[in-house]
């Protein structure tokens, strides 16, 4: 069993799992029917990707592991998503900013991951690129609209950008498993994506007439399984059925 590969997969797939879960909370509560449908659609895409990653991880783990034991039965410290994706849905400005800051990163990662020596990861990346290109377009368009819309929307989205900016640096951190996988030609070296990421993000912020935050202190921890206080509650809901009714088929 290649533990580094499994940890590497968690590092990628947990981002989609936790962000999908956050988006799922919004279903039925969107600012318009059209955005509601679009956000649910993004959530669906992310969960679809999670299933592919976890089915693969389950095969690597062997035994009784399934996509569901991986998704629902790990302890909080074993989830390796970045802090950004677990941040709560305070309002549409936060939800769409979180989405935007993640989407730009996600697309860059997938574009590299499609060249992975691991055929399964490469195939999942190829399939996901199309979906995530759409997510990026959707969230970037909303950043432009809200930034260059009304004064109220401009202020709200600027606040969300400022508040969530502290979570962007962690996107480019590497765990030991990440480094091992990069060395084997399986993983993506995210440190190389940082320049392109901020260039792309800053371009959209400028088009949206928004200020690029000048923040020097960042938060990290998610990639090491050290999450925010929000994470426990998110998992409490997500794991509820599996914990209350263990070992059953649904």
């Amino acid at each position: 069993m290649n533990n580094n590969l499994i940890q590497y997969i968690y590092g990628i797939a947990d981002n989609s799992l936790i962000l999908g879960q956050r988006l799922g909370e919004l279903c039925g509560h969107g600012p318009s029917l059209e955005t509601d449908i679009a956000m649910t659609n993004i959530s669906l895409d992310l969960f679809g990707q999670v299933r592919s990653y976890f089915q693969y991880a389950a095969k690597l783990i062997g035994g009784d592991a399934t996509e569901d034991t991986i998704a629902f039965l790990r302890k909080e410290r074993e989830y390796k998503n970045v802090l950004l994706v677990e941040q709560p849905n305070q309002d549409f400005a936060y939800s769409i900013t979180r989405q935007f800051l993640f989407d730009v990163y996600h697309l860059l990662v997938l574009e590299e991951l499609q060249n992975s020596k691991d055929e399964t990861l490469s195939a999942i990346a190829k399939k996901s690129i199309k979906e995530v290109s759409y997510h990026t377009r959707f969230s970037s368009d909303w950043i432009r609209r809200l930034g260059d819309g009304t004064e109220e929307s401009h202020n709200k989205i600027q606040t969300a950008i400022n508040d969530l900016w502290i979570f962007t640096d962690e996107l480019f951190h590497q765990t030991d498993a990440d480094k091992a996988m990069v060395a084997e030609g399986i993983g993506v070296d995210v440190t190389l994506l940082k320049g392109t990421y901020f260039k792309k993000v800053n371009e959209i912020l400028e088009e949206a007439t928004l200020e690029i935050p000048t923040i020097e202190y960042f938060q990290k921890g998610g990639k090491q399984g050290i999450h925010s206080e929000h994470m426990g509650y998110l998992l409490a809901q997500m794991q509820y059925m599996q914990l209350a009714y263990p070992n059953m088929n649904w």
Partner: protein
Amino acid sequence: MSEHEVKNLEAIFDARIARDEKIEPKDWMPEKYRQTHIRQISQHAHSEIVGMLPEGNWITRAPSLKRKVALLAKIQDEAGHGLYLYSACETLGVSREELYDQLHSGKAKYSSIFNYPTLTWADMGAIGWLVDGAAIINQVPLTTTSFGPYARAMVRVCKEESFHQRQGFQIMMTLAEGTPEQKEMAQDALNRWWFPALMMLGPTDDASVHTEQSMKWKLKRKTNDELRQQFVDQTVPQAHMIGLTIPDPTLKFNEETKHYEFGELDWDEFWQVVKGHGPCNKERISARKNAWDNGKWVRDAAMAYAEKQANKEVKQAI
């Protein structure tokens, strides 16, 4: 237009419907036809979007990834149905904002069943199986209704609803074949949803105010009681097949009529819920109203941005 001319138009209009021709938005139509369609189609659209809430209550807690994805997709379909139905309604000269206002103020109704709470995962099965099952029985005849946009929307809606109904039944079947706890969960859900589902098909014929006119306009092909009987006859054998018990001790099959006979429904409860006093009426409306009110700044920004973009294009063109 003189009274005589209107009468003439009405006669032509009635004849078109009798010949099964579709009425399109730009065609002349009696004001009552327009109003009745706005009322019914918007009520239907509201039911779709309010109906997202009780199921949305279980997205974050779905027991497996597969079920979570299926539930999200189902709710997204409902949002899509809401969207076509609001659009069909808008062709009758009413705006979506007005329709939402009617929902939020309580002036417009939606299917009363969505005022019941979803308490366990089995409720996702029961809603798909029973609520979507009853909805299909109500809606299939509407695929041939006289108003074109409504009829066409219903073709797609019914296809998707029948998929949802099978999906719901499959959730119930999995539970019924599962552990004793799961089977109990399924039976409990059936116990709670059975009678509200029967009442979804509307008041008894003697208490239904809209039937006669609606039959003429093909908004209805069968009476509420006929539809209810069809639902019971179709659903009881499905419950038996998966080993669940219909919570009606008086239920029996009549060999002569070949129909199931069932007990009295609690119409007092029905009217209580319809009038706004069900278990979740207040939560449902306030969830919709909050979504709309909290989203105002987002919609305003989108409009302001679109205007700015249009102005830029005009300037560039000059």
